[in-house]
């Protein structure tokens, strides 16, 4: 029904499906060029970047994440040559996510599919592989239950990507996330579970917590809010980002101390007796 409506829309507008896919609009193109020119570059510097987004759109992929990344790179003052490989990699991840979605849910279409596709692509960018996603889907499918939706799978994969970002074993992470899905955790709860594990990565790396324990708790029926109850609160950011004193507001730089005047040399003491 949705497909029919889409085809009617395409026919009414006289567009081929490729052109109907959202590509970089004229105003968006203008904004990207303006950003580049404001930083001393040439308008044509952004052509290769825009081409990546246009080609993605021509394949029916959502181009918004790509144009957003181009904007981000240009706004931060980076050279288009540095932005291009990043955008190309994102496009590859979108293509892989699209192939995965076709394997699992041929009927999905429209904005909901695009949202799932983007989330799945993000999880690939976070270190989850296509085979990890396939395995996750296999394990997450409870016997006798309806098939996992694209949205459910994309959120589960994103949850798993937090675990891989924390450098924890993907095999155990997959089992844990799959267990959460089978136990009926909602999509955002699966995401938050992965994020919470990432926040507590030091506990897991140090062996104070294990993915197996958390999985066992989920299998016993613990709900998301019960899983980490009674455990110390995690720090609010990854270790690498933390200064010596957590959460300390920025201080103005200290004025340099004047050099200490040299002390006059002490006269030698007479030897103690």
């Amino acid at each position: 029904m949705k497909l029919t409506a889409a085809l009617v829309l395409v026919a009414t507008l006289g567009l081929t499906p490729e052109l109907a896919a959202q590509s970089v609009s004229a105003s968006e193109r203008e904004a990207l060029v303006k950003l580049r020119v404001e930083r001393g570059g040439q308008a044509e510097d952004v052509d290769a970047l825009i081409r990546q987004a246009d080609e993605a759109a021509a394949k029916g992929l959502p181009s918004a994440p790509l144009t957003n990344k181009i904007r981000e790179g240009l706004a931060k003052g980076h050279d288009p040559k540095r932005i291009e490989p990043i955008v190309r990699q994102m496009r590859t991840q979108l293509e892989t996510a699209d192939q995965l979605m076709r394997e699992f849910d041929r009927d999905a279409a429209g904005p909901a599919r695009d949202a799932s596709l983007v989330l799945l692509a993000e999880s690939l960018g976070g270190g989850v592989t296509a085979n990890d996603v396939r395995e996750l889907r296999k394990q997450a499918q409870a016997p006798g239950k309806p098939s996992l939706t694209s949205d459910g799978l994309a959120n589960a994969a994103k949850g798993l990507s937090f675990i891989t970002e924390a450098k924890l074993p993907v095999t155990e992470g997959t089992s844990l996330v799959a267990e959460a899905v089978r136990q009926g955790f909602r999509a955002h709860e699966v995401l938050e579970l992965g994020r919470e594990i990432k926040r507590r990565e030091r506990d897991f790396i140090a062996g104070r917590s294990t993915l197996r324990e958390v999985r066992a708790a989920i299998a016993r029926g613990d709900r998301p809010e019960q899983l980490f109850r009674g455990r110390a609160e995690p720090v609010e950011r990854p270790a690498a980002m933390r200064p010596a004193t957590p959460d300390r507001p920025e201080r103005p730089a200290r004025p340099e101390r004047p050099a200490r005047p040299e002390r006059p040399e002490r006269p030698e003491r007479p030897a103690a007796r």
Partner: protein
Amino acid sequence: MLAIATVIGACSPGLKRPSLAPQVTSAGVRFSLLHANAKSVALAASFNQWSAVSHPLSRVLTSAIWEVVVPLPPGEHLFMFVIDGTQWVTPPLADDFVDDGFGAKNGVVVVPPIER
């Protein structure tokens, strides 16, 4: 006097200080930064196409704390602060951090779904 008290509150260990992490409020997400020397601070984020001008922060009275409240839909949003229009800085506190691909880190704020 109040401003001084705010800053003291923000700096003194043992006293309750305002959190500088993004906070989800009924009016939107409150983004804060403590920066004494900035002449301007802006929020550049995935939701404003990384514009360094569209979401300026305002000084809280005359303190060193800068703030802006932005209504945002549920989901994950990436952001950085832009000091004096040119200096991009990773937020000191956020729900998460991700590499931006250019050698810096974006802060992440997560807006939870509205419970029905």
